[in-house]
């Protein structure tokens, strides 16, 4: 909101440099967004607060500064020239619902000469960035930007039946606004009507028909207040925000309405206007002043600082509150009607702190009396997992949680996406059901910018609905394509492939303490047939991995092959993981045995592994696949597998014969289970 410092000087004697003024304002929370010196004036643009409608005019700002600078507010008088006619002889006011319009005041100015405003007024209007229109419009703007009270003026001659009715619109009524818009009114909208028709949308915008024009001679001045929620709803519904509606939806000063009307009349009197006697004031249900009890000890309890009583009582009085000592250091404070934000003791304490200066409050630390012993486990695990991904050479990304419905269709995650009712664009109108879409966007972006490899991961939530419920799942996904590692003169670079991806999955699972995971071959939406695995843990699916389908890659304009994996961390973390235990290192030498088999090529490694594990050979420390090959001399349809088995006894040196017998057990089990042939037996 623009504030002219010359205008402020109507209310307060200011004699400060620009920087002193800005510092004073900001120290009490009047935040200067920008300022500009122009036409011998200083214009400052202030941030506004939703709870302080009283500061939406120059008077309110002057009042704040008067307290800060300890300067008196200048009294203003608004002389009028009265005629003998009572306002109520010319117009009747009816309010249909006092909740929607608690007070309505009005006065009439007759025989006015419409024309350009005098220089002083034009200067004021221009200073705050508006265009002067004519003396009547400029005066109502002047009153609004002085006092924050919106004023509306009607051409009296055009109000039919000498009546003003504040009521809700009837179905089917319309209003052509001052701006020329044809507004279709609905019954919850509050209107100002004459005997026949709506003439203004209450508190928001006037109608064209009854607006003041060059031929106007008599004016009806409206100074009223309306229910903030009703104003806000109507303004939102018709998509209009005016200086008036902005103020009414924050709340008007109900006591000030007659003064604002009189101020308008007085200014219009300068253009030859004569004012009717005693304004009309419909105020069905005046409320008592709000009152708040302030206890001195609460100030220290809340601020951590003792403030002397003299400062408290003086500040409160200067802010326009009346203060009455009840007991020692306990005051009853009556709140002026313009301070709609003050309701509780804490609100008063803020006022005292604000003017005392936040900078004078000391620095202390809150005592630590109790500590949470455990960290949030999910968080700890996510951090472990992120570190593992970084160590494995994946870069971390963070994508928006939105997805494009078209992409969601191609991805086919199998989950029902949650639509956003008011998205910023169609491509961000769903919440993502998978992280893979975002990662593919990143792959495309980086390949288009010359990247020869993209290995990235993201940890974040995915969202879906199930019936009436929405769900959020903590998810990890990673994708890999292109070269692995840096280029180096000593060695050839490897390209990412399925096993690069799978290795990362396996490492993650065992590092997180889920050794009993397994893979199942199954078709998964994202992946090519026969190029996908499901990751299972204790009989439940916790993730999937594979080669992204060509049609999906096409949707993201990616020409490369991309492998991707996605893990449902919410599911995974619910599973009991093996906690870490130290096991003593073997002190006796191990015996290792290499065995090569010939076997049908569709025998799966995982099955072999599980068969060996199920044997529970007592001193089999570990075993692994050393080599795998097909082709001559291995017969067609067969594959040669070479394993190394390592045996170790914790308490003695294992004898060769013992190792031999374990080895035989393994060989026999594999022979029966999978028709293995030992290489030598061939």
């Amino acid at each position, binding site marked *: 909101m623009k504030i002219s410092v010359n205008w402020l000087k109507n209310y307060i004697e200011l004699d400060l440099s620009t920087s002193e003024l800005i510092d004073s304002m900001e120290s009490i*929370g009047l935040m200067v967004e920008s300022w500009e010196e122009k036409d011998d004036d200083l214009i400052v643009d202030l941030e506004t607060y939703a709870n302080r409608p009283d500061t939406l005019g120059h008077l309110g700002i002057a009042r704040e500064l008067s307290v800060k600078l300890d300067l008196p507010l200048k009294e203003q008088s608004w002389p009028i020239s009265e005629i003998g006619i009572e306002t109520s002889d010319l117009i009747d006011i009816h309010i249909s619902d006092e909740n929607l319009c608690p007070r309505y005041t009005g006065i009439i100015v007759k025989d006015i000469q419409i024309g350009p405003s005098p220089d002083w007024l034009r200067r004021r209007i221009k200073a705050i960035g508006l265009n002067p229109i004519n003396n009547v419009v400029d005066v109502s703007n002047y009153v609004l930007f002085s006092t924050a009270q919106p004023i509306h003026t009607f051409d009296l001659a055009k109000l039919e039946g000498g009546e003003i009715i504040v009521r809700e619109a009837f179905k089917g009524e319309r209003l052509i606004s001052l701006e020329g818009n044809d507004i279709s009114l609905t019954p919850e909208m509050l209107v100002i009507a004459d005997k026949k028709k709506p003439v203004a949308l209450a508190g928001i915008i006037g109608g064209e028909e009854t607006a003041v024009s060059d031929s106007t001679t008599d004016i009806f001045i409206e100074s009223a207040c309306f229910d903030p929620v009703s104003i806000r709803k109507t303004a939102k519904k018709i998509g209009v925000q005016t200086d008036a509606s902005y103020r009414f939806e924050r709340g008007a000063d109900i006591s000030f309405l007659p003064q604002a009307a009189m101020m308008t009349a007085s200014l219009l009197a300068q253009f030859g206007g004569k004012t009717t006697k005693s304004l009309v004031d419909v105020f069905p249900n005046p409320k008592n002043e709000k009152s708040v009890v302030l206890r001195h000890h609460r100030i220290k309890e809340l601020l951590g600082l003792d403030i002397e009583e003299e400062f408290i009582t003086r500040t409160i009085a200067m802010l326009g509150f009346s203060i009455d000592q009840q007991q020692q250091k306990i005051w009853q404070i009556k709140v002026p009607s313009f301070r709609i934000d003050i309701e509780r003791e804490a609100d008063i304490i803020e006022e005292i702190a604000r003017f005392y200066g936040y900078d004078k409050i000391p620095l202390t630390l809150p005592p630590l009396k109790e500590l949470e012993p455990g960290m949030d486990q999910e968080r700890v695990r996510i951090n472990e997992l992120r570190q593992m991904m970084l160590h*494995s050479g*994946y870069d*971390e990304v963070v994508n928006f949680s939105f997805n494009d419905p078209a992409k969601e269709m191609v991805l086919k995650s199998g989950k029902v996406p949650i639509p956003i009712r008011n998205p910023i664009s169609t491509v961000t109108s769903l919440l993502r059901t998978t992280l893979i879409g975002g990662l593919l966007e990143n792959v495309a972006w980086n390949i288009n910018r010359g990247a020869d490899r993209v290995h990235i991961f993201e940890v974040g939530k995915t969202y879906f609905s199930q019936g009436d419920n929405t769900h959020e799942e903590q998810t990890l996904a990673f994708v890999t394509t292109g070269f692995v590692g840096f280029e180096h003169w*000593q060695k050839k670079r490897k390209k990412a492939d399925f096993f690069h991806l799978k290795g990362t999955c396996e490492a993650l699972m065992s590092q997180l303490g889920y050794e009993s995971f397994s893979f199942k071959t199954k078709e998964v939406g994202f992946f090519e047939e026969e190029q996908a695995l499901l990751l299972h843990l204790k009989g439940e699916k916790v993730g999937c991995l594979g080669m992204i389908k060509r049609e999906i890659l096409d949707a993201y304009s990616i020409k490369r092959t991309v492998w991707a994996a996605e893990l449902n961390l919410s599911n995974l973390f619910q599973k009991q993981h093996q906690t870490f235990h130290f096991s003593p290192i073997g002190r006796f030498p191990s015996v290792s045995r290499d065995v090569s088999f010939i076997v049908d090529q569709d025998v799966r490694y995982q099955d072999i592994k599980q068969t060996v594990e199920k044997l529970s050979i007592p001193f089999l420390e570990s075993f692994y696949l050393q080599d795998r090959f097909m082709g001559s001399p291995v017969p067609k349809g067969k594959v040669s597998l070479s394993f190394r088995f390592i045996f170790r006894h914790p308490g003695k040196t294992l004898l060769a014969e013992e190792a031999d017998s374990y080895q035989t057990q393994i060989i026999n089990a594999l022979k029966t289970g999978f028709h293995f042939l030992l290489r030598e037996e061939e």
Partner: protein
Amino acid sequence: MKDLKSKIEQYRKEFEEAVSEVRDSAALQKLRNLYLSRKKGYVAGLMDQLKTLPNEAKRDAGQLINTFKDHIQAELQKLQDTFQKQKKYVKAVDLTLPGTKCYWGAPHPLRVFQEKMEDIFLRMGFSIEDGPEIETDYYNFEALNFPPHHPARDDWDTLYINDDLLLRTHTSPVQIRVMEKKKPPIRIIIPGKVFRKETPDPTHAPMFFQMEGLVVDLGITFADLKGTLDFFLKAMFHNKIKIRFRPSFFPFTEPSAEVDISCTVCNGKKDDCRVCGGTGWVEILGAGMVDPQVLKNVNIDPEKYSGFAFGMGIDRTAMFEYQIPDMRLFYENDLRFIREFSRK
């Protein structure tokens, strides 16, 4: 037996001579083979001869051979050690060639920054909390003292799922969720993802990260808020920065404050500073004492307990710290940008 003895003597003599002439490892190896080779060495020959001796002579003869063998081994080892010490590597390869680089991934700058912030609060005994990103109107607004249809909601442009559900516009609803289930003392931070209905531009995004803090206990004061944030900001940026608290308004705090730090880019000396706009101050945080109504909403007696809360944008603060000019860089995920942070 005599034969054997004199043979050993002869070998010993020959050995002493041969040893004195050995000049390099190759000659050393030759000599070793001559005497110690398992099949054709002189010592092996002696052993063969041993077998032909009568049993009663074997013991002494065996000892003689072993002494001789030990002597040779010791001499050869001595010589080898000498060569080892004198050994010089010849220039085989250009050692200025680049070494093998270890490839590790780069963390996202927002995560780096978030962890940096978290660490400071963990040092002060805070614990970390989070809550749902899809929130109800009650937790996101009403419980935080935003009445329905209040203009204060305009500052929190909201993405809605339906009339009741929305994407949380701040991490503050987690304050309510924590206070509902836990009684004071409460000392938490809440880092997390938040959403606003804002089109991306250099300083706005429809999704970003915030960190919220909440302390509720007996006797918590505004001075405690100031002290806590003073420590945090100095630990985060620099010991010498200036910190300014100025009055502000948030529906869920009373009194409320905004916190600025002195511009570390221009030190307040440049009128057209891109970061502070010449004011010398950069807005970092919103804060205040928890509004008594908010405490009442979670059944904490505001006459007995008090608390403070604060919140800041992780993106905005990271932009300031790293001098990143455009918020959209965080979400484009250009790896050239991300990998800059492999050094963080």
